[in-house]
C-alpha cells in the first residue's frame, strides 16, 4: 500500500519537475490584480484575462499568468506564491494599496523581474520599470469642458461624488478647476459612494430641492444609472445633460446610439491593464524598450470614436 503511494507521489513529482523544465523555456509574465468586486475591477479582470489569452496564443514563447486577489493581504500572499515556484520575467501589478504592496513587489524586483505598476502607484517609485495609469484629473476636466461648451458657459448643475479617496478628489478637482470663472454654478455636491441605489436617492432629493437643474455630473457610471432612473421617474425636462465617467459599456452604448442627455463619456478604462500587459510583453520579446511613465489621457468618447471603447462581452 505504502510503496504504491510513494511510487504515485514520485511519478507526480517527476511530472511536476518536467512541467517546470518545459515552462522554464518560456518567458513568464505574472499579472496580479484585485478580484472583481464591483464593475470597474470586473472590467480589469476581464481585460487581463483577454490579454493573457491573446498573448499566449500569439506568442508561444510567452506565458501570461493572471492571479486575482480579494484583499491586499491576499495579494501579498499571491505574489509570494507566484514567485516561489518559478522565476518571473515580468510582473504586471495593480496594487490594492500602495503601502502594503511596496515591500513585497520590491522583493520580486530584487530577483531580477521587470516590474510594471498599473493605476495605483507604490510608495517607492524607483521599484517600477514601467508605470501606466489613467488621468483622473482629466476625467473631471474634460467632462467640465464639454459641459461648459454645451451649456453655453452658464447653467445650474448638481454633482454626485463617490467614496472619499484620491481618485474621487482628483476627478472633482479637475472638474471644479475647469468651471472656475465660468457661469456654471454647482448647486449641490454630495457623496453617493459610487453606488447606483444611493445615486438614485440622492438625485430624487436634488430634484425635490431644486426646481431647475440644467445638468448633472455623476463622477462614475454606476451612479449615472441611478441618476437617469430618478430623472426618468420625475418626468422633468429641464435636465439637458447627465454625464458620467469610467467607460461602462451601457453608457458607451448610449453614446453610440446618440442619446441626447448622455451624448459623451469620459474613460478611465479598465482596459489599461491590457495596454500595460501588451507593453510589458513588447519589452520582453520584441526588444521594444518601454521603461517610463505612461499616462493614458481621458479623451471624450463621442459617437465618432465610441466603438474603440465598447466591449459588449465585458461585464463592465
Amino acid at each position: 500500500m505504502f510503496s504504491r503511494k510513494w511510487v504515485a507521489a514520485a511519478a507526480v513529482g517527476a511530472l511536476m519537475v518536467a512541467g517546470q523544465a518545459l515552462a522554464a523555456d518560456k518567458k513568464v509574465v505574472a499579472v496580479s490584480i484585485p478580484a472583481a468586486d464591483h464593475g470597474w475591477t470586473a472590467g480589469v479582470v476581464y481585460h487581463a484575462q483577454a490579454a493573457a489569452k491573446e498573448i499566449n496564443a500569439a506568442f508561444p514563447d510567452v506565458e501570461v499568468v493572471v492571479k486575482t486577489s480579494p484583499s491586499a493581504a491576499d495579494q501579498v500572499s499571491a505574489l509570494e506564491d507566484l514567485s516561489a515556484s518559478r522565476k518571473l520575467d515580468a510582473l504586471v501589478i495593480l496594487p490594492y494599496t500602495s503601502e502594503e504592496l511596496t515591500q513585497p513587489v520590491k522583493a520580486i524586483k530584487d530577483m531580477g523581474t521587470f516590474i510594471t505598476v498599473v493605476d495605483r502607484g507604490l510608495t517607492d517609485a524607483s521599484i517600477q520599470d514601467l508605470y501606466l495609469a489613467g488621468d483622473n484629473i482629466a476625467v473631471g476636466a474634460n467632462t467640465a469642458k464639454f459641459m461648459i461648451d454645451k451649456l453655453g458657459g452658464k447653467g445650474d448643475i448638481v454633482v454626485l461624488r463617490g467614496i472619499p479617496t484620491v481618485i474621487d478628489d482628483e476627478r472633482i478637482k479637475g472638474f471644479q478647476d475647469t468651471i472656475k470663472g465660468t457661469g456654471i454654478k454647482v448647486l449641490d455636491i454630495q457623496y453617493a459612494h459610487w453606488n447606483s441605489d444611493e445615486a438614485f436617492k440622492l438625485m430624487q432629493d436634488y430634484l425635490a430641492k431644486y426646481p431647475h437643474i440644467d445638468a448633472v455630473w455623476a463622477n462614475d457610471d454606476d451612479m449615472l444609472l441611478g441618476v437617469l432612473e430618478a430623472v426618468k421617474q420625475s418626468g422633468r425636462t429641464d435636465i439637458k445633460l447627465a454625464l458620467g465617467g469610467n467607460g461602462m459599456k451601457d453608457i458607451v452604448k448610449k453614446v453610440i446610439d446618440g442619446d441626447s442627455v448622455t451624448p459623451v463619456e469620459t474613460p478611465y478604462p479598465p482596459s489599461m491593464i491590457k495596454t500595460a500587459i501588451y507593453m510589458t510583453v513588447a519589452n520582453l520579446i520584441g526588444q521594444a524598450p518601454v521603461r517610463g511613465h505612461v499616462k493614458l489621457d481621458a479623451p471624450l468618447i463621442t459617437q465618432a470614436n465610441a466603438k474603440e471603447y465598447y466591449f459588449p462581452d465585458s461585464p463592465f
Partner: protein
Amino acid sequence: MTALTQSVPARNERRYQFSWADAGPFLALAALLALGFLVNPDFLSATNLSNVITRSAYVAIIAVGATFVISSGGLDLSVGSMVAFIAGITIMFMNMMAPSLGLWAIPAGMAIAVVTGLLCGLANGVIVTVGKIEPFIATLGTMGIFRALITYMTNGGTIPIDRSLREAYRPVYFGTLGGIPIPILISAIVAVLGAFVLYKTKYGRKCAAVGANEDVARYSGISVIKTRTVAYVIQGVCVAVAAICYVPRLGAATPTTGQLWELQVITAVVIGGTALRGGKGRIWGTIAGAVILELIANLMVLSDFVSEYLVAAVQGVIIIIAMLVQRFSK
C-alpha cells in the same frame, strides 16, 4: 410560564393606556417632519414625501422580518447580501424564461424569489438553531456566502433584466394604485400581516417568550428550535418581497446591491422600540423606524447647513438622540 402570564395582562393594559414608550418612534417621526418643514418647505411636498416613503419600503419590509428574528432573541446580518443574491437569481430566471413565457416570466420570477428567500431563511435558521451557532457568527458567514455568490453570478459586473420585461415590470416600483405608490402598499400589507402574526397568534407569543427567556419558554413546552427557525424563514420571505420591489427600480443586480442594508434594518427595528436582546417586538414602530432613517438622509440633502463630509456624523447623532428620547420617556 412567568414570561407568558406576565405578558398577557401587559398586552391588555396597553390597549387602554397611552404608553409614551410605544409612542416614542411616532413622536420622533412627527418631530422630524416638523423640523424638515422648518428647514425647507419643499420637504413636506407630496412628491418628496412619496419618494422618501417609497424608498424606505425595502428596509421597512425586511425590518418586519427582522422584528420577528430579533424579538425571538436572534439576529440576521445576512439580509443585505441576501437581497442581492435573490435579486440576481430572480433576474437570471426571468431572463431565461422570457423567450418561452413572455410577460408571464415576471410572476414566475417572483415565485422563484419567494422560494429562494424561504430556503435562504431556512438555512440561516437551521444553522443557528440546530447547529447551535451564535446568530451573529452564523449570519456573518451566510452574509459572506450570499455576497460572494452574487459577485460570482455577475462576474463582478451587473445582471440587467431583459429589455422585453423591463417596461412591464417597472410599475412594481414606479407605479401607483389609487394614488399610492405600489411599494408603499406592499410594505403596508407586509406590516399588517406581520402585526397580526406577532400580536394575535400563538406563534407571535411564542416568539416573544423565546426571546424573553429561552429556558422558561422551553420548560413551558415551547419548541425553541422551531420558533426561532420559523422566525428566520419569515425573515427570508420578507427579504424576497423586498427584492421583488427592488429589481424594477434599477433593473439590475450588482455586487454592491443591498450593501450595509443589514445595519439599516437593525437600526430601524431598534429605533422602533424592539429590544435588541429579544422578548419584545414592535412592528409599527419598526415601520416608523425605517421611515425615520430615510427621512434623516433626505433632510441632510435638502438642508444646506451640513457639509457633505459630515452627513454621516449628523445622522448618527440624530439616531442616538432618538434612542435617548425613547429611553427617558419611559
